[in-house]
């Protein structure tokens, strides 16, 4: 990603807005953008989802491969999650090898899903020591207007929950639904104009500072945290964010569970 010169004017404008507890698009500090979630929309993927949050649009697709289990874990399959943000998604994204930003995107989403234990890797075993399923979750950005993290994480869990294990195509039995026992949800907060807000847009990201990503599981257990970018935050600020995340993830989890 090319680093645009951060416009000083934008930063000072965002500070002014923050003083009045306002945001550039009129939202409240903890308010998310309009959300639209669809699943099973990609004909070649075994599971898929499309998430739209304002002008941010992403796809997630699940594919399966047969792997040989690792010698020290003969009864386990695997889960791989990778994120790609190609130039299609915005004028500052460039082609070439994966940028540090997209590597971070993939890893942060991967951790939240993996650590929640929502995929039982033991259930992916076909023949112990010989064959197991590798689940591959690919996250793909179509339009980046900020907060790709939450969009990717949401699309990822929805795609997994709607995935069919293609056993017939691989001639190892009958197709069946991938078992996903939990619904980890990520919420991301950016410091904009001095205070943290939820679900920042691209302009807020551009004129903002550090960001904090929290993935919570079904019982509000913490599965993944990540602080990104330069910036300093206090314990009190973190507590406020965590409280908001607990509230927010419960709502989003309900939406996903009811799809």
């Amino acid at each position: 990603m090319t680093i645009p010169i951060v416009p000083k004017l934008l930063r000072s404008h965002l500070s002014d807005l923050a003083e009045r507890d306002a945001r550039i698009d009129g939202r409240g500090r903890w308010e998310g953008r309009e959300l639209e979630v669809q699943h099973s929309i990609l004909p070649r993927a075994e599971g898929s989802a499309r998430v739209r949050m304002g002008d941010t649009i992403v796809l997630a697709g699940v594919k399966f491969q047969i792997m040989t289990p690792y010698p020290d874990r003969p009864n386990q399959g695997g889960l791989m999650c990778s994120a790609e943000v190609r130039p299609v998604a915005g004028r500052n994204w460039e082609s070439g090898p994966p940028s540090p930003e997209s590597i971070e995107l993939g890893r942060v989403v991967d951790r939240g899903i993996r650590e929640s234990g929502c995929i039982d890797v033991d259930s992916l075993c076909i023949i112990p020591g010989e064959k197991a399923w590798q689940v591959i979750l690919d996250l793909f950005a179509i339009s980046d207007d900020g907060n790709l993290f939450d969009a990717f994480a949401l699309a990822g869990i929805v795609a997994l929950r709607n995935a069919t294990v293609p056993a017939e195509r691989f001639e190892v039995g009958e197709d069946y639904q991938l078992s996903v026992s939990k619904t980890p949800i990520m919420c991301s907060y950016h410091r904009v104009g001095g205070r943290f807000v939820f679900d920042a847009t691209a302009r807020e990201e551009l004129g903002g500072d550090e960001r904090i990503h929290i993935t919570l599981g079904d019982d509000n257990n913490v599965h993944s945290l990540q602080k990104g970018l330069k910036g300093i935050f206090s314990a009190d600020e973190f507590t406020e964010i965590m409280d908001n995340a607990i509230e927010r993830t419960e709502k989003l989890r309900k939406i996903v569970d009811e799809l």
Partner: protein
Amino acid sequence: MGGYGEVQMIDENGVRADGRGPGDIRPITIETGVVPVADGSCRMTWGTNEAIVAVYGPMEAHPRKIQRQDRAVLDVAYNMAPFSTTDRMRPGFNRRSREVSKVTQDALESVVLLELYPRSKIRISIEIVSAEAGTRCVGLTAASVALADAGIPMTDLVVSVASGKINDVVVCDLNKEEDNYGEADLPMGIMPNSGELVFLQMDGDLSQDEFKQAWKYNMDAAQEIHKLMVEALNGGDSQ
């Protein structure tokens, strides 16, 4: 071309396995404005192909060494998403993608009025999110719609479509099975108003007469697809 002659894909009445006649194309939908942050964009489905194209620019060309004093440069990247194919496609560099990017760029540079934007760059990203057969045709056609959606002046739109040969019969717009087992593939990029060409490839085995028939099918299909493109750009429902 696979060339497995034994697979029967068209019957003695000229009806293909999916019910089409020899000159028929698969269903097509076209939508613009699908990438809100882009200057122009297009989503095109064609059979079970789906392409999403975003256009950014004209913008400053950098690094400076790619600038041209007297015209804009295009930067076309064709890519297949990892979940676009039956077996997952590994992301990253790939000779086929680079080749398709290049021929698509050559085709589009033939119609865009590049000299209107000296020193600038127009970036065209073609993402195949679902692939059946003929993705390069889908990508090129959708790219010309996205350029129009971005308001970039062109001498004409480009319609790309391929004919080929299955079971020794020339047919238009091969689907996946026909492409796998077919005996020839002739994709063309056509300017629908003049009937001139900006893109041409061919693989396989066609006699001179078969070649002329395939050419004609492409020319006729181009007119049909052109109507859908114009409707989509005029805000109509192309479905």
